[in-house]
């Protein structure tokens, strides 16, 4: 099982290639927001950039908070989201301690599915898809994609 990590964010140049790739390839949208990884300046452009990724919690507070079981725990960390079960209540967003979930104006949640499709678009190798220790075996295809 793999998860996305952001080990070299000090190299980030703020090009948004990762967010735009996630929005385009995973969520089928053109957007800065509807992406599992979002980039912001850490207090202005002169201070560099931060990523807002899912930290692959296990257990995940967002899954625990979801009242309709739209969110379930993903093996190795993070969550699997079934949007057909989601009632747009926003409890996942409130529960996430690191603001990794974006709710669009209709309340639809967007969160990283740890697929790694953003990784090759980063020109500075800030991102990495890594194996989670103790979860060896064939990588599962992410179950959730765009709604």
């Amino acid at each position, binding site marked *: 099982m793999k998860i996305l990590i952001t080990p070299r964010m000090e190299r980030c140049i*703020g090009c948004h290639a990762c967010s735009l790739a996630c929005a385009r*390839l995973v969520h*089928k949208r053109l957007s*800065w927001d509807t992406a599992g990884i979002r980039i912001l300046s850490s207090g*202005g452009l002169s201070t560099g950039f931060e990523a807002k990724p899912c930290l692959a919690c296990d257990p995940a507070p967002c899954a625990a908070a979801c009242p309709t079981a739209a969110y379930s725990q993903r093996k190795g960390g993070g969550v699997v989201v079934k949007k057909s079960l989601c009632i747009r209540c926003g409890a996942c967003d409130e529960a996430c301690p690191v603001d990794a979930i974006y709710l669009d104006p209709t309340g639809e949640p967007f969160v990283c599915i740890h697929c790694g499709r953003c990784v090759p*678009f980063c020109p500075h190798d800030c991102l990495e898809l890594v194996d989670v220790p103790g979860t060896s075996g064939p990588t599962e295809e992410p179950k959730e994609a765009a709604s």
Partner: protein
Amino acid sequence: MIRDNFRVLVVDLSIGRGTIERVEGRDVHVGGSGLAAALFERYGQVDQPWNDPRQPIIFAIGPLTGYFPLMSKTVCAFKSPYHDQYAESHAGGRSALSLRFADLDALVVTGQAERPVCLSIGSQHLEIKDVHYLWGKDVGTTGKMLRRMFKGSGHRSILRIGLAGERGSAMAGINVDTYRHFGRLGGGAVMGAKNLKGIVIQGDGTFALPKGKEYAKLFQKVHLQLTDTEMMHKYHNLGTAANVAVLNGLKALPIRNLQQTTDPKIEAITGENFAERTLLRNTACSGCPVGCIHVGFVREKFMEPNQYFYRQVAYDYEPIFATGAMLGVIDPFAVLDILDTVEQTGLDVMSAGVALAWATEALEQGIIKEEDTLVPLRFGEAKIYTEAVRHLAAGSNAFYQLLAQGTAKAAGRYGGSEFACVLGQEMAGYATGEVYFVSQALGFRHSHLDSSGYSYDQKFEAIDPDDAVEFLVKDEQERVFLTSMVACLFARSVYKEELLAECLNSVGYDTLAETIPQVSQGLQRHRWQIRLSTGYDPTSIEIPKRFTDISTWKGSIDGKVLDRLRQKYAQKIVEMGRRETG
């Protein structure tokens, strides 16, 4: 998003309201440069001065903005305080994608606010906020304040002006997201005249992708092409600053007010040396994986024994040419120090550097006096130049007020026109020869980016004026289509007609994709028509004597060729800008 018309937000600051307008003509006006010209025709007052409150300031993006890499720039258009004619200035940062995600093809601001305001827009909001307390604040402080006052960190663009814009300087730029600028031809003064201190554009909209799999596949192909090329290496590595050593080696670097074109001492301020000694990091415009923005540092000891602060200052070739070579300042940290002052006061760096280079020589020759310059300008004296930059931005006395309206205007009053390095506006850093001098002097934006005249100079030993004019016209025509997309011109070697057609097709602009050559010609003509309608007479442009006094690697500049070229290109521009009658 993909639409055959343009969705334009028109804000009238006089009444504090905006309207969404639908403007027809996607297949003719395209976007960017073409759209800006169409909008100026609609909202501009060709026979009224630049600071008439009704005049618009226009920010326009193109049909591919945000859809493909390096489609990351915005065209800003206005009637310029520099020459009181229609003008364009281009910038990147996050401005282009912010407009895209705010669901706007263009923003037009007209009117004049009663008090200093900041305009904040997004896909679902419009607010005009009183910010009188920011008037007089420098560009950095203003940026920090606006960042705190408005939401959306990371997914927005913050445009603002400094003292130069507030004071109506024709050299005032608009700062975009700290490290980019609508620098040239006085856009900052147009905002200042409107009492518009800042614009915050929040890119908070989300849009469907084009149907089918073709778009994502094509994106991948374009991304790979752009990141695999030599261009990527050049701009990502040393950045445009690499040109310092190249042009110095060619004897084509303007040094000390273009008294020289090469100097071994320039070695100290090459891109290599800047990278080695001052480079902190790279940063990028949104939607561009190249990351050409190079951020250096300067530190200052403000107290003994070891109390320092540091500042981060972006550098490029042009700023190094203008505040380094042109002023004889050959220490990279001293160059960054001057640059930082230029940034904070909101001046355009090329204009400011070249203007102060002229003032230095004029002072040397006794044409002007120290009571005019207030400080003893001398080539190489960096600290004095930082003081002079502040005087220039503030318009501290009658001399600086006039100089801030353009070096040629000051030279017209005081003398020294023959060594004013003005080619339509203060020169860019290419002393490559006759074709470049004419291309900037007469070109639409008076920019080194209007067409690659400097390449023509380097490619051909002898200049054939007819061939050169044909080249300039054709090259401009290709570029005007790119600046209507709006592509970063660094990507011009990748975004050729065939690829642009594929890109346009993939997002649904089939008609445009099939008609690029005809549409480009129409855009070029229309833009010239607008410029000429505001009073531009290319036949009246003169090229100062200094440009024919110099030598490059090819030897002396040929004054006769220069003059023939100037006349022929002027004639061609008049033809292109002629409106059909009957």
